[in-house]
């Protein structure tokens, strides 16, 4: 590390503050059951009713933001499962 960078490290406290504010705003309103986790479970249950879902073929991503959260569920449905359901 150059001596120049040593004196120019970005301030980390503002980031700590922002991360805490976002995190705690979620944890406070969802101590019992987090809405996003609830949705994830129910959506997967509905899909499992119709299609045999391979747990390895399901990708779930969550991004909790200050104003909106994004729940991304990516499920691979095999062709033969579609035929069976029809």
């Amino acid at each position, binding site marked *: 590390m150059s001596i120049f960078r040593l004196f120019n490290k970005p301030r*980390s*406290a503002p980031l700590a503050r922002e991360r805490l*504010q976002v995190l705690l705003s979620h944890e406070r309103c969802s101590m019992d059951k987090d809405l996003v986790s609830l949705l994830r479970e129910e959506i997967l249950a509905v899909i499992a009713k119709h299609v045999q879902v391979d747990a390895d073929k399901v990708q779930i991503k969550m991004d909790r933001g200050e104003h909106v959260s994004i729940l991304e569920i990516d499920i691979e449905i095999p062709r033969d499962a579609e035929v069976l359901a029809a």
Partner: protein
Amino acid sequence: MGKVIVVTSGKGGVGKTTSTAALGAALAQRNEKVAVVDFDVGLRNLDLIMGAERRVVYDIVNVIQGDAKLPQALIRDKRLDNLFLLPASQTRDKDALTPEGVEQVMNDLKRYFDWIICDSPAGIERGATLAMRHADVAVVVTNPEVSSVRDSDRIIGMLDSKTLKAERGERMEKHLLLTRYDSNRAERGDMLKVEDVLEILSIPLLGIIPESMDVLRASNIGAPVTIADARSAPAMAYFDAARRLAGENVPISIPGEKRGIFGKIFGRKAA
């Protein structure tokens, strides 16, 4: 009737035991009768910080199980006549504390003492919930660091729901004690500032304890920092906090160790 204070934090290692001992000794120096109670069954340490580790005969579990009377288990401080310690058990597991037993001990202590200060174990399990259960006032010990602030937020939620006061629909009085604060680092933007933590946790501030070598020195010799070195910066901050607990209106000051050019070079106080 005495007032029950719980010193709690959720996270371990932030200074609960140090603060319990320091506040207890500070209140006792105001000529009030104080009992400090260790709730950390299995991992007791308040005896060590108070310098009474070699005088423990009975503990809170013995009292609850009827093996000893409360006055037999209380250890009087050698330096302050009106400061007493009720140690935790070192050998039992945390289930040895029963809600009924703790209630009985608390009611008895309240009759004899002006202040009962309960040193909570870390975590959110039985020991921690029993330590806060009978409290009138909570001191939430927090370091200016993300994981400590998060855990304090969780503990504040529990204080508002799982205590007798909360169950009776009363408001639990909660105070923030910010420990290990380094005003230089906060000023440089490398540490959360007092205002940041206050804004996030939104409970009133009881005091700011500066990061200091004096705290470790006090624990090395087995004395609360408010006895070991009453003129040190952390001791003075604890004395102020104790006065605020007792209802005095003491303006908050941020303990900033002003560093001269020598201090900056050698990384310690120039004085």
